[in-house]
């Protein structure tokens, strides 16, 4: 079973804060791996917010291929973090050559691209690198995006964190998400490790997605090259979010209406009944059945948490202005933000979406029975 933890803070934090929170929840997960997502980066990346950062694991040969490939397109290395690991990895952690975190400068001709075209090309490039890596098994690419770092590895999360020196200053960030499990519901593969990422959207999920296959088929048939992979049944949550926000222009408040639409009685009395009924019908193949708790991060750095319709996985959000965390268990929250008003902790239920916006000042709760924000219902 997975345990999830996400935190957003005005002051940059070390990823170790999150790893410690995961560690206190270790009874709830099998310590088989860790996935880390960092955004709104501090340290050296603070001054290069627009530079795309490539995160992944490479063999020496893979790195050479990467360099040649990127040079060929015109990408120049702007900054890199070199993780020098001890010669012997901890038990259960594979020996790797290079954990790569490298910021690039765009090729000159890319500077004229519109934002959409730029984003599409970044995605395309990441997928191409992934494919190249899969062919020769010398590269694993997690993300290639400005202001985002992702690290994933098999093994005990705390041991991996120490081994990879997660406490280093260069990895401090204001938004951090982590998950403590590797062997997911399908084959063991680092691409199956949460959190998942696509074009600025990232989610991680606790639970089993029983409607995985029809959802996967629907997404892959959208004709969008980024909807691929699916080594994990949870990857579709990230892609549904991306589809809904970029393709349909809906806000995160509508996410629950897509994945777990209201039943007819509630729908009839909803002020946006017409829109929601149409959304429910036209997005029917994206309905999930859980049990799932999803924590996600939006391009504007908001964090949110939602549950499935009825089975629900553990999940709580709490904190104080300036710092809020989303956790599978309250003990994780206690470890990260011990001094907070615990009476304001909130456990989202089957209708709720808990959102902490980029200002990090409050937890906003949207219930599915509430009207949609005016921009969506207009």
């Amino acid at each position: 079973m997975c345990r999830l933890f996400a935190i957003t803070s005005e002051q940059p934090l070390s990823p170790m804060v999150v790893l410690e929170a995961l560690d206190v929840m270790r009874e709830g997960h099998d310590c088989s791996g860790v996935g880390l997502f960092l955004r709104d980066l501090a340290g050296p990346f603070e001054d290069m917010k627009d530079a795309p950062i490539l995160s992944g694991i490479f063999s020496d040969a893979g790195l050479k291929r990467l360099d040649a490939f990127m040079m060929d397109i015109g990408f120049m290395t702007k900054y890199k973090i070199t993780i020098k690991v001890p010669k012997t990895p901890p038990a259960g952690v594979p020996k790797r050559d290079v954990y790569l975190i490298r910021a690039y400068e765009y090729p000159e001709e890319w500077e004229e691209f519109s934002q959409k075209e730029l984003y599409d090309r970044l995605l395309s490039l990441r997928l191409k690198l992934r494919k190249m890596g899969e062919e020769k098994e010398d590269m694993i690419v997690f993300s290639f995006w400005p202001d985002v770092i992702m690290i994933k590895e098999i093994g005990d999360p705390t041991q991996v964190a120490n081994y990879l020196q997660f406490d280093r200053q260069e990895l401090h960030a204001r938004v951090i998400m982590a998950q403590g499990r590797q062997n997911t519901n399908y084959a063991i593969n680092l691409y199956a490790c949460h959190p998942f990422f696509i074009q600025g959207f990232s989610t991680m999920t606790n639970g089993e997605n029983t409607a995985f296959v029809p959802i996967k088929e629907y997404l892959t048939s959208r004709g969008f090259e980024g909807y691929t992979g699916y080594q994990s049944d949870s990857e579709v949550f990230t892609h549904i979010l991306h589809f809904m926000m970029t393709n349909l222009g809906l806000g995160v408040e509508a996410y629950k209406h897509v994945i777990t639409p209201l039943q007819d009685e509630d729908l009839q009395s909803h002020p946006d009944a017409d829109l929601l009924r149409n959304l429910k019908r036209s997005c029917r193949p994206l309905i999930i059945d859980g049990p799932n708790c999803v924590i996600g991060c939006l391009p504007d750095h908001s964090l949110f948490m939602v549950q499935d319709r009825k089975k629900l996985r553990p999940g709580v959000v709490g904190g104080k202005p300036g710092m809020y965390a989303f956790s599978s268990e309250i003990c994780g929250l206690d470890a990260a933000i011990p001094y907070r008003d615990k009476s304001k902790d909130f456990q989202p239920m089957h209708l709720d979406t808990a959102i902490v916006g980029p200002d990090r000042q409050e937890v906003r709760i949207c219930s599915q029975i509430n009207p949609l924000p005016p921009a969506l219902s207009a």
Partner: protein
Amino acid sequence: MFSNKPVTPSTLSVKDLPWQILWNKDKCNLCGQCTAVCPVNAIELGVFRKKFIEPPVGLDINGTLACDYKLYYGIRQKTDPAYKCVGCAMCNMVCPNDAIIPCRSDEADKLRFHMDRGGQPRRRGGRRNVSDGILDRIKFIRISMLTDPALDAGRHEFELRTLLGRVLPPDKNLKFVQQQGWIPPVREIYPLIIGGMSFGALSPTMWEGLQLGVAYLNEELNLPVRISTGEGGCPQRLLRSRFLKYVILQIASGYFGWDEIIHAIPDMKEDPCAIEIKYGQGAKPGDGGLLMWYKVNKLIAAIRGVPTGVNLPSPPTHQTKYSIEESVAKMIQSMYMAWGFRVPVYPKISGTSTALAVLNNLTRNQYAAGLAIDGEDGGTGAAYNVSMNHMGHPIASNIRDCYLNLVKVGMQNEIPLFAGGGVGKTGNLTANAAALIMLGASGVQVGKYIMQAAAGCLGSESDRCNICNIGLCPKGITSQDARLYRRLDAENVAQRVVDLFLSFDTELKKIVAPLGRSTSLPIGMADALGINDRNAAERLRINYVV
């Protein structure tokens, strides 16, 4: 027959017949009810002469042997093919002493070689005489054991409705909502639909019972069950009632009853659920509908707008159209127009290897509200034996191919597929229906199962009864003869319709709950399916399990 008389090629003995009447002289009280009830006059009063030899007591060399002839009465089975026993066993049902029962011959009958008198091949009602099917072999293997126990079929909420109608892609749909554009009508209905059985093919009591049951399910139990009329129009009273919204009106190549339907449009209080354009059916693929003259009485003739006592064969195709493309396009459009673009219109075809071409055609028609495919196991009121037994395409691979094709073009949510033909033919209605849904159907249509479960149809896959075509249904289900159909009580039929839908609903939950599904119907959830046949698994792209 005497042993020295000539025999004709078609002279048969009782042994040569498929059904043989076993009659017990000791139990029979000679009431005659069996001969009266037999729908095909296969049995008659028999007067038997029997010799008795009674030697006198004691030795008398010169005496003659006492010998006498006595008569007794009983039941005699006719061997003329025209009066063959159909095995319905009504004789057994009415016999007060259980003295009579038809038994299946222990070998293949010889009658089958003599059923074409006058050059007329055998025609019959009923079903294809093949008892097994792939659907029964499919198992549901993906039991949710991973992160959480399975759902509770008895306590959790379930949303098992499906959509009938053209669903727009999400971006287009939302744009049309905002700009108040035309959004095709979509019905949220129960995924088990009572398939097209016409008023005419079915008796008035049967039809009334089905409609009563459907109305009760909708209005009292909130189960949005829909029923197709089949080709034969619809009684005026129903057309002008609020219950019309539960009815799918079928139009087929004979256009029977459509004059009356069109004229009733101004008086309709509700729109019908949908319009089904029938291009084919599973039982007699490529052949038109057929209501034989026996069944065309005054009421039927009035509803259909024809004279009484004439055969009503529909042509195999819609004669006014040049091609199916043209036909589908024009008919769908004109039907939409008739109801102001408020009613979904979709075609029904027989299972065929060309189904994909029809489907591709529909994907390009923005009005097409779905596609119903009726597989080879579909039942019928009347068809040639050869059509029923040998024509058509199995539904499982047909529906799967169509669904996967829709997935390929990304339209799996836009054109719902409905599957029919042999669903529940061995009694496993829910398992068969769920398998088809997980193969990609949005819902299933059933006919024969309804006839059996709701009205006690005697038909079977071993050629029992199957005389629906000639109006002699011994249960009164498919007869227009008041002496027969008054055996069936409409309210009892309605009760059974309600029973079967409620039990189906419980069973469907018992299937989807362990799979962890309850928020939506698991359409296309093929990862849940397994079969112990590698070729079938490969063909259907489901799991091979042993």
